């Protein structure tokens, strides 16, 4: 056990975690030249296309240092704020963390929040100043920031470049010398923490664990603490680039288990695995259930696919414990699910994964936060969907969730960011100069204003330089009203939103205009109206198509014509009929696309 080191790589988004991981894997020959590609751990198509890490990835390396062979278990984590729960779970399986800081960007919001997560678990922090190869690097300045932040020795900071490979050897040495070997004892009963699980269509559910105490052998009869279910360990092993089966794993090891589990409900990330015959006395402290920040309806495009959607979401939930769902129904869309997400990126990713991995084409409705509605009888109802708001006559008041946001920015963008936050009904709480030209702002903001387009706006105002982190800080009474959207006089529940009274008019107008762009012309006029109660506050019309026939099929080119009509048909398939109007997928998310 003394030759094992378990560590994760944490940082702000894009500071170079996955690229640095590539270098570590390379130098330790974990990845052969043949398998080598940039950000090799980002193995989901989506991750590769977007160039970001979405899921944590664990991998084991062998490292020979001063004649001793070490087993290093590395976990690469995502940097985006939506996925910080992935970081916290990875941290629970480690004794140390590489804190990467981009030398051109300096300390950013998630550098701080992820550092605190690691410190909460008493991890040994190795600060790494990355991208030192870039001309724009400001090593001395950023080192000052790091020393200020963690209170480490200036010499403890390792300069490195994930691009050129500079400093990588030093990082490996530091991992061995500074991060403690796992404690725990092989002789005690088995106690292993499940920190992740994935669904594999051939093997069923694969759980990733870290053994705290004891050991487990292939074929052992094991029990999952929380569910009480018992299984045979059909296969156990370690996570190399491909899973590598082993006969035995012991305290300190990170590995995987396949035990013939088919349904996602049976595995709870954060659960403890132990032996049936010689169980440990208590479970390891698991993870706090992550609380979703935004909710949206997810409906199958084809109503017949409801059950299939359910099983697809269940499977996704298995390797994404942060995804929650409950059945709901909509007048407009029929049966679907109210899903909880960590943020908009998360929602977008889930929608895309449903499509790619399960071939489930879905409609996602306007996202909203969770409100507390107080009735005149004094009851409190948690509302995840504008349409389940109690009748206004019985409604005493509504409270909406607030967050405390920390924004780090260069001082030149201060004005623009202030304006943005105030527009979003924010109240400034604090303002600290980190250096002469970097400021940390603390704002109280309604979460509902943040989930829509705050992040994109912040990025564009600050030319990408401001970073932002937040946590939920409580509820406050708000003047919220329900804005209904009507298509040809029929209210469409899936398009209704809760909106602050003061913004309702301008919002109603903009949403009608956007819907007009998104709803294709049909064989009759379509009236799009925004209403508060019975009062119409805005109206647009999508004019009827008068003619849908192309004249020419020239020179016998029937193929082109057929393909065109085929496309037309497929386009229609991706639409949902609401009343007599065909509404495309994109229209349900019109709110997100307002300029």
């Amino acid at each position: 056990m003394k030759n094992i080191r378990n560590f994760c790589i944490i940082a702000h988004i894009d500071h170079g975690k996955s690229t640095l991981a590539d270098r570590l894997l390379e130098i330790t020959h974990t990845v052969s030249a043949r398998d080598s590609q940039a950000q090799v751990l980002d193995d989901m198509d989506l991750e590769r296309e977007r160039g970001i890490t979405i899921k944590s990835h664990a991998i084991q390396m062998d490292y020979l240092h001063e004649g001793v062979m070490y087993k290093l278990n590395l976990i690469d984590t995502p940097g985006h704020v939506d996925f910080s729960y992935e970081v916290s779970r990875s941290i629970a399986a480690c004794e140390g963390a590489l804190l990467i800081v981009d030398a051109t960007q300096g300390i950013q919001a998630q550098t701080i929040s992820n550092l605190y997560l690691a410190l909460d678990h008493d991890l040994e922090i190795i600060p790494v100043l990355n991208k030192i190869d870039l001309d724009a690097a400001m090593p001395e300045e950023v080192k000052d920031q790091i020393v200020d932040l963690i209170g480490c020795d200036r010499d403890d900071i390792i300069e490195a470049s994930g691009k050129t490979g500079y400093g990588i050897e030093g990082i490996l040495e530091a991992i061995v010398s500074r991060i403690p070997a796992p404690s725990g004892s092989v002789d005690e009963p088995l106690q292993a923490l499940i920190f992740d699980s994935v669904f594999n269509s051939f093997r069923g559910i694969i759980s990733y664990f870290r053994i705290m105490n004891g050991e487990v052998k292939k074929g052992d009869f094991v029990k999952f603490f929380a569910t009480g279910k018992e299984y045979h360990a059909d296969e156990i092993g370690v996570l190399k680039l491909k899973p590598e089966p082993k006969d035995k794993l012991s305290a300190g090891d990170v590995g995987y288990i396949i035990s013939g589990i088919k349904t996602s409900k049976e595995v709870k990330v954060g659960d403890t695995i132990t032996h049936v015959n010689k169980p440990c006395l208590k479970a390891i402290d698991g993870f706090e259930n992550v609380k979703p920040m935004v909710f949206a309806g997810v409906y199958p495009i084809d109503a017949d696919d409801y059950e299939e959607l359910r099983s697809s979401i269940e499977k996704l939930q298995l390797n994404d414990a942060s995804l929650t769902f409950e059945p709901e129904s909509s007048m407009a869309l029929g049966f679907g699910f109210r899903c909880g997400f960590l943020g908009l990126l998360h929602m977008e990713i889930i929608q895309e994964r449903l499509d790619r991995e399960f071939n489930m084409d879905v409609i996602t409705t306007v996202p909203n936060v969770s409100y507390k509605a107080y009735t005149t009888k004094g009851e409190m109802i948690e509302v995840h969907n504008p349409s389940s708001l109690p009748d206004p006559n019985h409604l005493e008041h509504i409270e909406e969730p607030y967050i405390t946001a920390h924004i780090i920015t260069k001082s030149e963008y201060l004005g623009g960011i202030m304006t943005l936050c105030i527009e979003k009904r924010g109240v400034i709480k604090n303002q600290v100069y980190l250096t002469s030209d970097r400021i940390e702002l603390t704002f109280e903001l309604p979460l509902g204003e943040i989930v829509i387009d705050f992040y994109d706006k912040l990025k564009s105002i600050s030319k990408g330089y401001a970073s932002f982190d937040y946590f939920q800080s409580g509820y406050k009474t708000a003047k919220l009203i329900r804005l209904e959207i009507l298509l040809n006089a029929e209210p469409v529940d899936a398009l209704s939103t809760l909106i602050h009274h003061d913004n309702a008019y301008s919002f109603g107008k903009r949403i009608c205009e956007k819907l007009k762009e998104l709803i294709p012309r049909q064989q009759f006029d379509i009236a799009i109206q925004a209403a508060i109660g019975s009062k119409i506050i805005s109206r647009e019309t999508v004019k009827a198509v008068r003619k849908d026939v192309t004249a020419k099929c020239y020179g016998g080119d029937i193929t082109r014509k057929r393909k065109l009509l085929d496309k037309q048909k497929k386009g229609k398939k991706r639409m949902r009929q609401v009343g007599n109007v065909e509404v495309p997928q994109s229209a349900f998310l019109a709110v997100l696309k307002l300029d």
Partner: protein
Amino acid sequence: MAGIYIHIPYCHQKCHYCNFYSSVSKKSKPAFVRSLLKEIELQKAYLHQEIISTIYFGGGTPTQLNTFEIEQIIQHLYQHYNISGKAEITLEANPDDLTQEKIIELSETDINRLSLGIQSFHNTDLEYLNRSHSANQAIEAIKTAQRHQFANLSIDLIYGIPTLSNQAWIDNIQTAIDLGIQHISAYCLTVEAGTALDVFIRKGKMPAIDEEKASQQFEILMDVLYKNNFIHYEISNFCKQGFISQHNSNYWKQQKYLGLGPSAHSYNLVSRQWNVSNITNYIQSVEEKNIVPFEIESLTLIQQYDEYILTGLRTIWGVDEIEILSKYGREMYDYFRKQIELFIQKAWIERQGTIYTLTKQGKYFADGIASELFITSD
């Protein structure tokens, strides 16, 4: 009943709306004709010695060839194919090429039908479209052709041109009627991606197409021609009794055809193929390798069904449910019956016996209806 289509890929100038394959540089013409003659021999087997009942010279602008070249091609076809004695032989022609002299020459060939690219009898429209002829040239060409025994004349007209008022459109149709034209192909101006027109409209240099007006002009077209005893036998095609275009009808009636020349399409019931759209490449391959590069698509049963719907619905012959049942099977038949019901209710489709055709109102939505009846693969 099989047809041969010959693509002549040259034009005097490029019309703004055009996305057909053609070139304004004529340097390669002699070599092209040589290659075409060779392709005629190479493709002999495609139609399996079937009797050829129609030949159609399209393009491009076939009148960019001299009459000797045209005659050479026709003779070559006679030599290598089984051409019916009563074959309909059509030549597309542009008014600016049709001098009296040329018309006389053409009248001495076996060509028995001319299809004239008139588009409009108003110069403002012709300028908008960048046509290479004037309204007067158009009328002159028609009259001259008629004087020289062309008794089966077709003209192309375009409506929905932003410069074309409804009254001017009525004038255009009336002019054609007064001239005694037997066949009219009337197309709604469509802005194809990548054409000059597309670019000009997007840059705001030319007015965009007004769909409402286009639809009014479609209505005018039908009203005026119906009153004058024209048969509306295909969405864009109207003719006097007895003057249906045999060649084009083959396309709608799912008959075999062989296409020769760059970009030409061929069809043999189970597959479609099309020649490379590149004159240089075409000539080189034929000269050096004795082959024409082409792409081919074999048609699945679903695609065959889709095409039957798409082509059939556009015509007065319609779609026959017995044909669907016997050729495509019960499942597709049931699907068809289910899907078509809505359109019958809307009175866009009319059913007579086992035959389904578009009503006048339905003709406005032919694409939408066909696509709803499609069975999409995957």
